[in-house]
């Protein structure tokens, strides 16, 4: 008999940390984006996706609303907006 001992990677995304957001969330304008990838790299949650210009967004299921992506974007193409309470 062994009990709970190891965790396999596919169990990793059970904690929906998007619920931590209270006041605001980042909004990706997708207008002046130059695909520098800085937002994707800075996200401590690694929940920002994107490839070519103006395709960047975040997975609101996990986004904690820290605001680092907004600060780091060289084109100010992300802004903090009011939290809607939806995770889409």
């Amino acid at each position, binding site marked *: 008999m062994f009990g709970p001992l190891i*965790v396999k990677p596919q169990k990793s995304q059970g904690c929906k940390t998007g619920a931590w957001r209270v006041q605001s969330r980042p909004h990706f304008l997708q207008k002046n984006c130059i695909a520098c990838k800085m937002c994707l790299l800075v996200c401590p*949650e*690694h929940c920002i996706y994107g490839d070519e210009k103006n395709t960047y967004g975040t997975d609101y299921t996990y986004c904690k609303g820290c605001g680092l992506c907004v600060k780091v974007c060289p084109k100010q193409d992300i802004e903090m907006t009011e939290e809607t309470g939806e995770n889409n």
Partner: protein
Amino acid sequence: MKTNPLFKPGHTACAGCGQAIAARLVIEAAGPNTIIANSTGCLEVFTTAYPETAWAVPWIHSLFENSAAVASGIEAALKYQGKKDTTNVIAQGGDGGTADIGLQALSGMFERGHDILYVCYDNEAYMNTGVQRSGLTPFDTNTTTSPAGSTSMGNPRPKKPLPEIAAAHGIPYVATASAAYFQDLQRKVKKALSIKGPKYIQVHVPCPLGWRHETNLTLEVARLAVDTGLYPLVEYESGVLSGRRQIAPKPVEEYLKVQARFKHLLKSPDEIKKIQEIADNNIKKYGLKVEAAPQT
């Protein structure tokens, strides 16, 4: 976000955590053929609370002070199995688990010459247990066990020079890095993993909770630490200083005023002067200042 990330979202780090940024960058630079031995601390707790795990590489946590020793065992096992050449071994921990309680195991690992990269996430205090001072807490920092008060300016001791201690062991590669400089950090990780033997990388990672700054200022704070000269980004190869990131030095006050852990110093120009001295000494010692262009 990659389709198969090695470090997944859904972990419970504080919003804006510098260590989460750096840890992800490290494992992505190392790649899937990596086994990690992790010390007890923030990173371990926020990535692996049963039944969750953020790690898609083999990962083991044993105790607080022994990740360098556990990694030594993993490396020995891989050598026995003939798999060491195709597998990276990374031991990682915070400044507490590395510089203080973990120093013995770290030194032993260096001395024995194991083919392991040790990454220290330096957030300058025992953060996971509530912001108590460590050997890497900077001079005059307010922590819960070195609090500022009417008879104290905070931590009375300078940072333990752990990169130099590592370099003094004669290991092939030592570097300091910062959560603010992604490419630099990943370059250093890749360089380290291409060298056989013990390697040490110390990454400066701001902690919005412990340093008391806004969650969206993590990168800015990390950049200021480097740009003031308080956190030199350097490289040592076989004990000799071989590289440094040059800066156009900013006054230390710019760094101190964005973090409430230094709030008590803002009314004490004498203390700020002492900290400026630390920065100036670093700049001189490591040759950090961008030289003025020669007059023609």
